[in-house]
């Protein structure tokens, strides 16, 4: 299996990364990807001007690598890509890209979905947003905990 797990501190081109990943996997019938990006335009006009993710070097990438191993052990995959940004990002910039390549479509969907649920709720990132010129730290969302509970 091709595994590619990276913690990035500079902007990345999600389409190019996914294209490169796909080219390495001609034997995979299906590739499911999730791209998370900084939303341009917020609810009730609360535009997020910037988003910052902080990580902790001794924990963050090792945990991402451990998650990838867990996903690869749970489904039959040809490839797994996990890219996550750290640092400050503006609206429309990619934050996270997960892609799972598999012979069978269901495996690819489930693996990407599982990886995202666990990245969102368990990985060592702390997020703050700049709205109307002021930074505020984001607390974990209950939804993320519920998403995680789906996997038993």
């Amino acid at each position, binding site marked *: 299996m091709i595994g590619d797990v990276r913690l990035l501190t500079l902007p990345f081109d999600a389409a190019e990364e996914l294209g490169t990943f796909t080219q390495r996997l001609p034997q995979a019938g299906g590739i499911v990807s999730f791209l998370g990006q900084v939303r341009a335009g917020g609810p009730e006009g609360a535009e997020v001007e910037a988003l910052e993710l902080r990580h902790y070097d*001794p924990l963050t990438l090792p945990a991402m690598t451990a998650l990838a191993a867990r996903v690869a052990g749970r489904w039959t995959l040809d490839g797994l890509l996990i890219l996550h940004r750290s640092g400050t990002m503006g609206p429309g910039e990619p934050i996270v890209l997960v892609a799972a390549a598999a012979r069978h479509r269901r495996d690819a969907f489930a693996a990407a979905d599982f990886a995202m649920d666990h990245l969102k709720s368990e*990985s060592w990132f702390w997020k703050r947003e700049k709205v109307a010129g002021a930074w505020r730290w984001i607390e974990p969302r209950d939804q993320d905990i519920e998403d995680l509970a789906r996997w038993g």
Partner: protein
Amino acid sequence: MAITLVFLGRLEDAAGSGSREVPAAASLGQAIGALDPDLADVLRGPRIRCAVNGTLVQGDVPLRNGDEVAFLPPVSGG
């Protein structure tokens, strides 16, 4: 003779900086107890986890000179 404390996420605001050097302490509990009481209370919160030299720890643990202690609030990433 010092240890490094690292404050992640919102704990950075509570501590006033992302990290600081403090005099060596025999244990995690002693290191926290030597801080400003308001900050110590925050760091003792039930949802704050700790890592010593990159390894998660639970409860009070001994510390050695040069250790890096990270205080980790609930994550909110991705």
